[in-house]
Each structure stands twice: as structure tokens, then as C-alpha cells.
């Protein structure tokens, strides 16, 4: 029983990602012991919270069975809106609220188009990727605006000894999202919607509402994270978050979130995002040409998914073996008519 429990914990994908994380960290530490110095941790953890917040939104949406390719563009559009509104004389907090509602609105439109017209979210949000990026560039009016210092950026990115304030905002987001996904009935609906939409709706779950909620949450979190990045670098760039959509999906997948929905955890997505950032830093610290980062990330994605799949297969094989033993004496029934009527 105890060994079974241990086995089932080790077979959880986010745990194997965590083990991979420890191995990679150790490897880079051996290559350059400054890798785990306070200074390097301070640099990496100063930027990581922004990526974790996006990955959490993506992970929840993927668990519900949908995608969002527009997060990178929303990551730029939301802070750009805030900055431009402040330049128009709108009070900073009101500008922040309006900016974040742009993220919510984009999430809503993504969800509406996907669910109302029954098209893949991959397509709906691919369109939104271009639309939102274009709007961001248009909003600059041709030249990136200066950062207005009326905005309360210290509240979100103040640099403490090692960590930034953004780390605590990220922990808050992760805590609330974790409770919601893993402990609330809404989380149960999200997993069931992504696991098998038809079964969930036959049990009375309003699967479209659940998906819509996840689209909106994802858009909101992408915008919120983009705001933190702009507040940190104090420059709203129209190129901010370029290719972030793929990196966030990579983080979620590395952390054990399934592309097919119904499987994944907040912890896994967070570990995936952290792993990517430390991989980037480790490659630089090990004095490898930084251009190798993408090759490293690519290998990491493939290795982790192959590994997770192998672990799951192994688990299933064990079960089937047990069942085969159990049914050994009962001959399989030959039922030629197997198709159900529809």
C-alpha cells in the first residue's frame, strides 16, 4: 500500500518535471557555481513571476480543453493601453482597471468566437494574436511612449533583498488559482469539461460557461503579467511578449499539462515556467552561446513530454496486466455488433 502510494506520487507528471528541474539545476551548478548565487537567483527570479502568471492562465485554459495563442499579444496590449490612458490624463488606478478589462475583453472575445461558432480555439486565438499585436502597435502612434511615473509600479515590482514584489503577487495568484482548481467545485467542473466535454455536460455541467470563464481568466492573467513586466522595465514596448504564447504552452506542457485537456496542475505549470527561465540563465552562465537556449528549450519540451507519456503508459500497462490476470479464466465475449446507434 505504502509503496503503491509512493509509486503513484512519483508517477505524477509534475513530480517528474520537478525531478528534472533538480537535475538540470545541479548540472548548471556544477558547470558554474555562481549559477545558484544570490545574485543570479535575484536576476532570474526578478523576471520569472511574470512568466509563471501567464503559464498559470494557459494551464487552466488547457485543462479545460482549449488554447490561447493570443497571450503574448495581450501581454503587450494591456500595459500599452494603461500607459497611453495615463498620458491622456486618466487617473493611474482607473487606467490600470481599464487596461486589465482589455485583457478580460480579449479573453471573452476569444471564448465567444470559439464557442459560438464552434471553431477550434487554436484558430480563434491565432487571429487574436495578430489583431491584439496590431492594436498595440497602432496604440503607440508610431513611437513607443515614455513610461509615466504616476503609475504605482513600485507596488508590483519593488526590489527587496533577493526577490521582487512581483514574486509575492505571483504567489498570491498561484495560491488562489490552486485553491480554485484543486479544491473548489469549479475546479472539478474545469477538469471534467476538459477530460470529456460530452460526459461533463450529460452530468449537467454547463461546459461552455466553464470554458468561457477559463478564456477570460487566461486573458486577464496575461494582461496582468504584461503590466508587471512594463512596470519593471519602465518602458512600454510594442514587441513585449513576442513568442510568449508558445513559451507559455511549453511551460505548461513541460509541467505535465495535457494538450488534450483534463490533466495538469498549477504547480506543474509554475515549475515548467521556472525551469525555462533557469535553463536560459544556466546556458549563459555555463558560457555556452546564448543562441543555444532555443535548442535547449526545444529538447526540454520533447524530452519532458516523451518522459511523461512513458510514465503514464507504464502506469496503464501495470493496470492492464492486473486486469488480465483477474480475467484470465473468463473468455472474452465475441460481440460482432459494437457500434452504438447515434
Amino acid at each position, binding site marked *: 500500500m505504502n509503496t503503491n502510494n509512493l509509486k503513484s506520487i512519483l508517477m505524477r507528471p509534475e513530480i517528474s518535471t520537478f525531478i528534472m528541474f533538480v537535475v538540470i539545476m545541479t548540472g548548471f551548478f556544477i558547470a558554474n557555481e555562481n549559477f545558484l548565487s544570490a545574485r543570479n537567483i535575484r536576476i532570474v527570479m526578478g523576471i520569472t513571476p511574470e512568466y509563471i502568471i501567464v503559464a498559470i492562465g494557459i494551464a487552466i485554459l488547457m485543462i479545460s480543453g482549449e488554447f490561447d495563442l493570443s497571450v503574448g499579444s495581450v501581454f503587450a496590449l494591456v500595459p500599452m493601453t494603461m500607459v497611453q490612458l495615463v498620458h491622456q490624463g486618466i487617473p493611474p488606478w482607473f487606467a490600470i482597471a481599464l487596461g486589465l478589462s482589455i485583457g478580460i475583453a480579449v479573453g471573452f472575445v476569444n471564448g465567444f468566437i470559439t464557442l459560438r461558432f464552434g471553431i477550434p480555439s487554436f484558430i480563434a486565438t491565432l487571429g487574436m494574436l495578430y489583431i491584439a499585436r496590431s492594436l498595440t502597435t497602432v496604440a503607440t502612434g508610431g513611437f513607443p511612449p515614455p513610461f509615466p511615473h504616476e503609475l504605482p509600479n513600485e507596488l508590483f515590482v519593488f526590489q527587496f533583498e533577493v526577490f521582487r514584489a512581483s514574486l509575492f503577487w505571483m504567489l498570491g495568484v498561484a495560491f488562489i488559482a490552486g485553491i480554485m482548481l484543486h479544491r473548489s467545485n469549479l475546479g472539478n467542473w474545469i477538469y*471534467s469539461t476538459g477530460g470529456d466535454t460530452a460526459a461533463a455536460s*450529460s452530468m*449537467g455541467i454547463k461546459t461552455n460557461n466553464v470554458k468561457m470563464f477559463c478564456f477570460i481568466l487566461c486573458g486577464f492573467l496575461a494582461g496582468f503579467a504584461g503590466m508587471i513586466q512594463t512596470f519593471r522595465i519602465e518602458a512600454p514596448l510594442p514587441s513585449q511578449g513576442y513568442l510568449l504564447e508558445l513559451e507559455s504552452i511549453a511551460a505548461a506542457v513541460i509541467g505535465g499539462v*495535457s494538450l488534450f485537456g*483534463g490533466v495538469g496542475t498549477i504547480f506543474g505549470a509554475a515549475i515548467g515556467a521556472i525551469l525555462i527561465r533557469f535553463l536560459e540563465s544556466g546556458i549563459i552562465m555555463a558560457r555556452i552561446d546564448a543562441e543555444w537556449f532555443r535548442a535547449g528549450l526545444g529538447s526540454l519540451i520533447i524530452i519532458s513530454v516523451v518522459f511523461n507519456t512513458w510514465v503514464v503508459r507504464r502506469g496503464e500497462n501495470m493496470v492492464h496486466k492486473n486486469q488480465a490476470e483477474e480475467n484470465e479464466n473468463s473468455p472474452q465475449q465475441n460481440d460482432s455488433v459494437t457500434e452504438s446507434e447515434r
Partner: protein
Amino acid sequence: MSNENIIECKDLNKYYSGVHALKNLSLKIKKDSVVGLIGDNGAGKSTLIKILSGAHAPDSGHIYFEGNEVKFKSTKEAMNLGIETIYQYSALIPQMSIARNIFIGREQTTFSLGSIGLMKTKSMDKAAMDALNDVELHLRSPDTPVNQLSGGERQGVVIARAMYFKSKVLILDEPTNHLSVKETNKVLRFVEGLKKQGVTSIFITHNLSHVYPIADHLCVMARGEKIADLAKQDTNIDELTDLLVNG
């Protein structure tokens, strides 16, 4: 079995894009009985259960539940009255645990804001194990993902779920399809147990030999019509086979 009708359908009709899928179907189902609904593929069995379970509305006709006319707008409404449907392929979420599956959409919660709240996992785990024991299904842990169970065990979980939520009528859509003989017998025992606990079941199948031993009443469908409706003592397996094959 009592003489009271728990469900009565009168002159149900349903069209799907021009196809007359259900033709003037009338049916009475007695309380605490096992009704075998048999027919070949395309006979209209699925259409009938979709209407009874609230998934689709009939184009014309009436449904009475415990003597009162009902018009279901959703499966949730039918479930709230006590009609639970177990669809062949989509009754459980494979990746989720037994306990979570049993409580999908009906979670026990605390600290609720509106309909959202924290799940009482411990109490749900315990209730799940008790519900499984009630149908004589002894599984190790409520945390086991459903995809690690055999086909018969999965049907057991679904039946336990229906029992736990005090269903009055259980509609089983091909519950023994793709199961080994041993697993099929398990499921048949579950269904027999339902009758003892005062649950009416409608057992849909195209395999007469599965439902015949446990049915009180047999209803044969073909081409959207009911072609026979017989108490078991008034018929035999040869007559039914003939009806099923020759329609």
C-alpha cells in the same frame, strides 16, 4: 414490482432533419421493474432515451412522471426529478478520480459563494466508498483514476453514483457493450440489486441474452416504432429473437 406507472409516454414523435426517428411511441413503465428496451441499431432506442433523459425535447407527445406531466429543458431537470441516464461512452471522466467522478456537478461544498465553494474532499471520499460498498463494489481507494478500472467496475461506479443521489429511474444505454462475460455478469448483478432498492431501470441493449434473465418487461423497437411490449411471463426468448431479427 408495483402496479403503479412511474413513467408514461404518450404518442411521442421526433424528427431529425426530416427523418422520422420516433413514430407515435407510447410506453408505460412500472415502478420498481427492470425494463429491457431492445432493438437493432437505428431502431430509435437512443432517440427515446435522449427524450426521457431531458437531452432532447420531443416534437410532439406527452411524458408523465409519477402521474404528472413533465417537459424537461435539460438533463439537469430530469436528474433533479430522479431520472439518471448512463450513456454508453460518456458517463465518467477517465482521468479523474472515482470520488470526483461520483460528485461531478453535485459536489459537497463549504464556504460557498453562490454556487462555487470549497469541496469537502474527506466527506466526499467517504461517501464515495460507502456508495461503492452499497453496490457490492469493493475498490481500494476513492482517489483511483477511473481509467485504471475495468469496464464492469466503471459501470459499477456509475450505478453507485445514481444510487447515492437517490435516483428513481436509471436509464442504462448498452451497459454491457464491450465487456467480458464475467464483467457483464457483474453489471447484471448491479442492475438486479437496483430493483431490490426500489429503483426502476430501463436497460437498453441489442443483445437480448443480456437483458432477458433480469428483465420483468421487454419492449422491442424497430424503425422508430414499438413493435412489441410484453411481460416476461407472456413471452419467451425465441419469440423475442424472432421479433428482433424480422421486426
